């Protein structure tokens, strides 16, 4: 399998699923963590790996350094700012992860901050700390009970886009706080990948590869992504105030070592979607919406694009791995469409499963010899199509959430991403054209025309009467209408509009 970056895979380096679908996606990563992890790589300082005599040929902060490393081979060092993370999350986190040393560090940090506050009495200072903490904590990305160091803030400003650093219990419980003890902020493991499982890295690599192939998109995508996370400089100032105050007080901070991370690899077949991913992304990023609305839709879009490229990777000439969509609009129930979508979904999973089996012999020599074939396939299935189910449900393209009859459908949030990414801002297309574009971009089969093509190709079952798909298309139209993207124009013609204005030009 050709990979991107094009490096030789060492024995036991990757499991089968990583070779076939990229290194790596895992069930514990939530959608915002894909987004945060992607941004973490994108904004990090990048440098070439060590040369023969330990030299580095470039150090750069560009998001997509295609001039220096179009081959994707470089290291990156994310900002750590563990003091800031501790300040935001420690009081409201799981008890289990709170080591004594962190509790002390937190109290010291609060004291240092209070000292740096001007005006007001002790009570108002204490209140202000509480207010700031609540403000930032309100943007927490994951509302699960987790240790403080596993939590993340939505990418409201670059300063809060931080890697996951695992506080190892055995080490931290015996540690004592001292301003000169570098271990207080240094002793975290940044290579555990428990929640930030590298899904964001997979997306980053895909984008990097795409931008390298289509460099005309580079400046637009970079600047729009940058705008997305820098719309509110207030947060940057606030976070810098907290982190700087902490670093001034905690004198060992200057000796805390930075972290160097290396990207994994993705299969080169993902590049089939390069052009589409970029055109979708540029339309989407050019649509002027509220930064938060954009962030949320983007998080969904990333998952959708990742899922699609993985399905495409497993496709063959006969098996396009298209997604038969049940529009599933209340008031327009369509039993036949549901039935077809369910069987098509089952078939999709068979295609992926076949893909795993077919490739096992070829890569057996790279995999762990201690594991038998069955275990390898089982693991691969868990981390591929079983995981796709979870991802799909997370963004609402696979329904129902639990129970029988799994199939592809489209949630309101995903519809928003699709409209914004396929139609340029303030432009409109007819419904038929839109459905056709969805088919071209994401292999979504909604109406009879698309089904017919797939039927001829042989990747969906043969059906004599396609009228159920006409009703399915109507149901989809109603759903678009409910979302405010479709208007009936006149006889049998409806228009789908991207209602958002064009973002102001970069200048």
């Amino acid at each position: 399998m050709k990979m991107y970056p094009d490096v030789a895979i060492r024995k036991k380096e990757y499991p089968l699923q990583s070779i076939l679908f990229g290194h790596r996606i895992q069930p514990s990563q939530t959608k915002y963590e894909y987004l945060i992890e992607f941004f973490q790589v994108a904004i990090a300082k990048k440098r070439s790996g060590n040369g023969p005599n330990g030299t580095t040929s470039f150090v750069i902060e560009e998001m997509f350094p295609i001039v220096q490393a179009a081959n994707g081979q470089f290291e990156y060092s994310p900002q750590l700012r563990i003091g800031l993370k501790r300040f935001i999350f420690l009081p409201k986190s799981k008890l289990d992860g709170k080591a004594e040393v962190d509790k002390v560090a937190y109290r010291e940090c609060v004291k240092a901050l209070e000292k740096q506050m001007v005006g007001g009495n002790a009570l108002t200072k204490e209140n202000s700390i509480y207010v700031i903490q609540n403000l930032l904590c309100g943007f927490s990305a994951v509302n699960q009970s987790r240790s403080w160091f596993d939590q993340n803030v939505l990418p409201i400003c670059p300063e809060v886009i931080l890697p996951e650093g695992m506080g190892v219990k055995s080490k931290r419980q015996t540690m004592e706080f001292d301003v000169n003890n570098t271990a207080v902020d240094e002793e975290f493991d940044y290579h555990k990948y428990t929640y930030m499982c590298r899904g964001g890295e997979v997306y980053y690599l895909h984008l990097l590869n795409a931008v390298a192939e289509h460099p005309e998109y580079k400046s637009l995508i970079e600047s729009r992504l940058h705008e997305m996370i820098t719309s509110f400089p207030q947060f940057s100032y606030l976070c810098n105030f907290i982190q700087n105050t902490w670093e001034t007080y905690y004198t060992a901070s200057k000796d805390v070592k930075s972290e160097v991370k290396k990207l994994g690899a993705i299969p080169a077949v993902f590049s089939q979607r390069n052009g589409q991913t970029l055109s979708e992304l540029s339309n989407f990023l050019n649509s002027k919406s509220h930064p938060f609305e954009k962030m949320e839709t983007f998080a969904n879009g990333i998952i959708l694009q990742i899922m699609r490229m993985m399905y495409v990777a497993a496709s063959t000439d006969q098996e396009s791995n298209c997604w038969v969509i049940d529009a599933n609009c209340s008031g327009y129930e369509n039993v036949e469409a549901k039935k077809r979508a369910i069987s098509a979904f089952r078939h999709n999973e068979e295609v992926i499963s076949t893909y795993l089996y077919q490739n096992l012999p070829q890569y057996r020599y790279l995999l762990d010899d201690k594991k038998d074939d069955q275990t390898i396939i089982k693991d691969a299935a868990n981390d591929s199509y079983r995981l796709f189910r979870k991802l799909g449900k997370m963004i609402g393209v696979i329904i129902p959430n639990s129970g029988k009859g799994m199939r592809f459908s489209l949630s309101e949030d995903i519809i928003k991403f699709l409209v914004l990414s396929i139609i340029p801002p303030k432009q409109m297309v007819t419904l038929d054209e839109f459905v056709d574009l969805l088919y071209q971009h994401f292999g979504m089969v909604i109406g009879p025309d698309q089904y017919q093509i797939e039927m001829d190709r042989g990747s969906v079952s043969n059906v004599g009467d396609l009228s159920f798909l006409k009703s399915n298309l109507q149901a989809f139209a109603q759903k678009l209408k409910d979302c405010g993207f479709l208007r009936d124009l006149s006889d049998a013609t409806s228009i789908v509009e991207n209602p958002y204005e064009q973002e102001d030009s970069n200048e």
Partner: protein
Amino acid sequence: MNDFVNYLNSTNNVGGNSTGSLAEIQVKSCYYDSVKVDRKLGTYITDCIQNGDHKAFILTGHAGDGKTSILVQVLKNLGRLQASEGLLVQNEYDDFLYFKDMSEIKPEKQAEALQMAVTAPAKGKTSLLISNTGPLLKGVEAMVRAKKKAVGSAFTPEDRLKLQSLLLRQLDENGNSSLNIEGFEFVLVNIARVDNVPFAGLIMKKILEPQLWAPCSTCVCAERCPIKNNYEIVATQFDRVTQFVENYYRFLYENDKRMTIRQMVGQISYALTGNLTCEYIAGRYLKEPFFVYNFANLFFGYNGLKKAKDVAQIKGIGQLQNLELDRVALDADYSLFVSQDYSCFLPKIQKELTALLHRNQKHYQITDETQLLDEKKHEEELRLRRAVRRFYLLFSLCESEEESNHVMDQIFGAPYTEYKRLISGKQPRLILKRMQSMVFEALYIKNTGYLSEDKNTLPLTLRREDDVFQNVMIVLGEVNRGDLEVIQTTAASHFEDVDSKFDLYLQLGQNRFKLSLPMITYFNNLINGAISSNNNPALTHGIAQLDALLLEQYGDKPPKSEEDCELSVIINTTQGQVIKRFSFENNQLSI
């Protein structure tokens, strides 16, 4: 026997005979001239021809919106179409050229037809081409592609998307001015975008013309004919009935569920006749005809207490049954159902309702608990109430306009009549101010979670898009109450049939945000304590747009440096809202 009844029955698609709903056949009907309504566009085109101000018109719209009728109107105005004469697929006069329907022209000839139509003005002719939207888009595309090819320039997919977008935008906005695409100039009119609600009243008036009903007065069945009865009760309370019918169509229109003229005619005709024929009535004994086939019941698709079969395919009835307007509780419920006081109706209707009450009256008291909880019994009672409400909605006597408006507000949402008033006539500032206050209060609740008394500035808070609760929010700007101005703008065009039609906007500096009926109803619900808008994503999306507009217009400019930054946050505490401000200075935070 009244042949007009057969004509009415042919205008809807329930039952075997729906020939009257085809424009071509309609034209030939002897009743056509009696029921047709002239359109402004028809007059405008006639004027163009007669004044030698030749233009190319391309007309599109929903089936049943009256496209063919406009052609007929033009031809009749010019004296070129006699009564019961049909139309040709295409016809050419010295000063006028028409194509009745693009889809009746062979596909390979369509581009040619389009070319002929758009080049007609250059040859001293006005042209009118009626087309479905699909073939029209393809036709224009082919025309432009050919022209570009002729001059040796490329027609890229981006060009295609732009062209399509341009045509679709014109069809969507229905602007007055003509389009000029690659030197081809034409006026593109989408009749589906013309407000046709006021036609409901006109149509009813035409249908109820006394001479059309003259044969009924001498009919042997006159005393027991439900159709004649419907004619009489509706004619007697014409204004009241029309008011409900028009308001209902207005409500659909404002909720993007517009009815075509053919659909209106279909529903109104069905409500008068119930698709009964004179022969049927003459040959059969009908039980309780004046109740079962009453206009009020038929308009909602009911035969008495039961839903009539297959009538939901009449669009107006289908929608009405979905909306279940007769389920909405009314202020009058107590007097209607508890006091059984029917004095709000004319005696004829009172009689029907009292008879209904007697037929369904229980002469015993239910003491058995299982019977009390019996769902079937409840449903019966409910059906009865719904029937009485249907009569109330259509026929209750209202002493003043205010009173009847109040009835409409109860079923279409509290701000309905206020909204209607604002879109149908210039209103004094006071009324605009009232709407402005409502918008302000709703936005205040939406942005902060509370409504504090005497607040005059609206904080623009930064909130997450999902439903995670934040008790501290950053404030990105403030808007004064007075800056949120509600304005009315005229929507006059050559093609609008109503003169005083207004659109309602929230003026935000240079930007405008359209206030639709669903949006205003949502604002009103917010003030009354509704929390979430998630049940209607169209609203969520509209509100996100409003947020973005407000922020763009009134948001503070992002600070350029730390020294420049004042961070204000709004804190929801148990004692109310507190605003706190922070500023940064030399690594210190001033609080």
